[in-house]
């Protein structure tokens, strides 16, 4: 099914709900592999494509959910603006083709290295339209960046993986693209030293917009600054002083090389190219080294100053059991279906929160037809 309009989509969902037909919602298909399943009849959002409003002077863009991300980025670039949260491109990780859509970005709540400074996808998202599991069209938020009118369902929808509703339109607050950028790097640090260095950088008033450690034999620890030329030069110099306490520092000022480095960090390229289970673990940054140690130092990327550990342990490792006692959560990004079924893809919630989440799911999609099973817990049978 590829509805050509929101009204058509709503009708299709209403029909599916009345028949109890499961729907598998698909944007560009580049994240197929995130979550369990999928099961059900494919419902494609590509018919809901196009930028309906873009006001550079108001830092606002509104687009249909099926709009290719590349269209959004091209329109923004023409005005020297960008999406602040640096959405991850999942094609390397999931070995998929196709073109990511903006609706898919939102459904996955995909955020990249800049999340630590500019916020997550949900922080830039200011409005959504959606079709619920009963085929009702609902809007929330709007096109203005300060809005506290009613409950913030915008945030709830970001990262809900299509299980609360099919997002049909999204509105974003965007930011100016920087004139310049620089990466300041250290080499050869272990995880504890590296997080120490990143903490020093993030604790300084220099607006670091990326802070990553790539462990291994040729470990690299890097921080990024972005902005006007003079400001970037100044802050790179200050950060060189600060990081100098941890070892010899190199500064990269070439725009293309800076961009390429952070793209590979964003997409977990080196890590994702290898085989095996991939986990995404969010903890307080100082616990990052404990996570890597608890899993016996498998290949990993420690982003967000150490707080986001993407890691590739031996297949079938019970990562959550290994990390018990470390506050945070672990998501199983990539694995065999049986492994996903065994552990559950998303961190199981404590009972009271699980009840609330189930209640919300039941409210938005009472028949359970939207991406059924995608967010199912450990052991749940999701056969169609």
């Amino acid at each position, binding site marked *: 099914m590829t509805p050509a309009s929101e009204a058509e989509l709503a009708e299709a969902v209403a029909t599916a709900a009345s028949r109890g037909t499961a729907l598998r919602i698909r944007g560009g298909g580049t994240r197929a592999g995130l979550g369990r399943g999928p099961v059900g009849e494919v419902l494609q959002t590509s018919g809901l494509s196009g930028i309906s409003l873009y006001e550079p002077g108001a830092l606002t863009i509104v687009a249909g959910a099926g709009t290719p991300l590349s269209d959004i980025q091209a329109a923004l670039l023409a005005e020297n603006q960008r999406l602040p949260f640096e959405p991850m491109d999942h094609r390397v990780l999931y070995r998929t083709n196709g073109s990511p859509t903006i609706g898919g970005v939102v459904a996955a709540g995909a955020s990249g290295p800049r999340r630590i400074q500019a916020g997550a996808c949900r922080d830039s998202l200011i409005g959504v339209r959606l079709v619920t599991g009963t085929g009702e069209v609902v809007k929330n938020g709007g096109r203005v960046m300060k809005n*506290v009118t009613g*409950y913030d369902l915008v945030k709830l929808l*970001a990262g809900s993986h299509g299980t609360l509703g099919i997002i049909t339109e999204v509105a974003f607050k965007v930011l*100016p693209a*920087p004139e310049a950028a620089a990466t300041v790097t250290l080499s050869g640090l272990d995880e504890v030293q590296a997080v120490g260095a990143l903490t020093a950088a993030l604790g300084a008033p220099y607006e670091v917009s990326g802070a990553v450690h790539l462990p291994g034999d040729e470990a690299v620890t890097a921080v990024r600054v972005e902005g006007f030329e003079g400001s970037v030069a100044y802050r790179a110099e200050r950060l060189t002083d600060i990081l100098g306490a941890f070892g010899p520092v190199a500064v990269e000022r070439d725009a293309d090389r800076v961009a390429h480095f952070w793209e590979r960090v964003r997409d977990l390229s080196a890590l994702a190219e290898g085989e095996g289970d991939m986990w995404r673990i969010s903890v307080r940054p100082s616990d990052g080294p404990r996570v890597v140690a608890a899993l016996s130092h498998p290949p990993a990327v420690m982003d967000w100053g150490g707080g986001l550990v993407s890691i590739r342990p031996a297949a079938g490792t019970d990562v959550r059991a290994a990390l018990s006692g470390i506050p945070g959560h*672990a998501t199983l990004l990539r694995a065999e279906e049986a492994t996903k079924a065994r552990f559950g893809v998303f961190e199981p919630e404590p009972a009271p929160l699980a009840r*609330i989440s189930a209640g*919300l799911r*039941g409210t938005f999609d009472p028949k359970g037809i939207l991406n059924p099973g995608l967010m199912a817990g450990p052991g749940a049978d999701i056969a169609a």
Partner: protein
Amino acid sequence: MEMPVPDKEILARKDRVVRDLRRLIADDSVISDPFETRAYECDALTAYRCPPLAVVLPRSTAEVARVLAYCNAEGVPVVPRGSGTSLAGGALPTADSVILGVARLTEVLETDFDNRFIRVQTGRTNLSVTGAVEAEGYFYAPDPSSQLACAIAGNIAMNSGGAHCLKYGVTTNNLLGVTMVTMEGEIVEIGGAHLDPSGYDLLGLICGSEGQLGVVTEATLRILRKPEGARPVLMGFTSNEVAGACVSDIIKAGVLPVAIEFMDRPCIRACEAFAKAGYPDVEALLIVEVEGSEAEIREQLEKIIAIARTHNPVELRESASAEESAAIWKGRKSAFGAMGKINDYMCLDGTIPVSALPEVLRRIGELSTEYGLEVANVFHAGDGNMHPLILFDANKPGDLETCERMGAEILKLCVEVGGCLTGEHGVGIEKRDLMTTQFDAPDLEIQMAVKDVFDPNWLLNPAKVFPLHVSASRRDA
């Protein structure tokens, strides 16, 4: 403003409810004397008052849980209260409700500079959160005007903003985790010192839910290193349109100031008379502030001033010292006080697309003539969050009602041009009955259905946010 008729049956068992509450938590944490409960009869929306059945001021999350479990079992409505600074009536009680205040929960529980967060009890004031970390060079970014008095609990309930949110975001963008008590008395932890959830973003849903989904007793907040310096520039223009165009051009040029404040002539004159900040007598005034090191400030101000010059400013004043910076901010920061000095006023909070600014200001001017009430405009221009102040005379019969009707027209105008009813104050009771102008029935139905999940009996702050006729069947069930 209509409020639900208090439940006579609850009023009749007041003594028993109070006695039970005193058994559940420390005796001196329960206030029932009608003389003392009067202190809780309103918040900062003082036009509406009603003393509650009783007030409880728990000293721990466990006590909050006991009170909520009891009220839930007994069917007694609960109105959560931070510091009572809501401009929207968010903490207005009904006669049959128990006010649950977090005023005694003010501790700092943890500060962690390596991980850049602070965990506090939510009765703590906004400013004192920064106070707890500023010696180490950190601050908590959201800065509502009431930050000296307002509590973090209320900031979370209303998703409060402030003058600096163009750069730093509002409460929801700076909130990492909460300890919340549900109406059933269950204590839940949402989020923490790590970023982002694995499953649904319940934290994002709680923030801004106006105390209708749960009572937040502890919060983990992101703290940031203070910038090396900050400096404002003041610009005067011959019309609102020109000032609006200047704002848009600054943003388009890639500069992201930490604040862009806008004042129109009535507001400039009132502030000048009150604060004597040395403001020029112009149609429209902008205060633009940038941050960074000395060189970074220079780099940004040069760009901003170059843009401003293309709009032929009649005044352009760059601060050259801390004293001059303070003088530039002095008038703006005393705007509400200055208005209060000359008149009673109603402060609106609608947000509009920045591009609609000239049109909206023109139409507000027309409404002002039509209703015969003066309006002064002061607002956060970078993000389109307007604060029209409608001046009225509370002692003049009918003036408040006229003012409210005019306020409603202005808010409808904000919605009409693509904006919203409230940018940072919240709906409360003030904008409750206007919700149908912004939302269609299914939009409100799904929000109310979300409340059903958290508070099936609709006992938590029930008469707020949703128009009474829309929520009646749920509240009366």
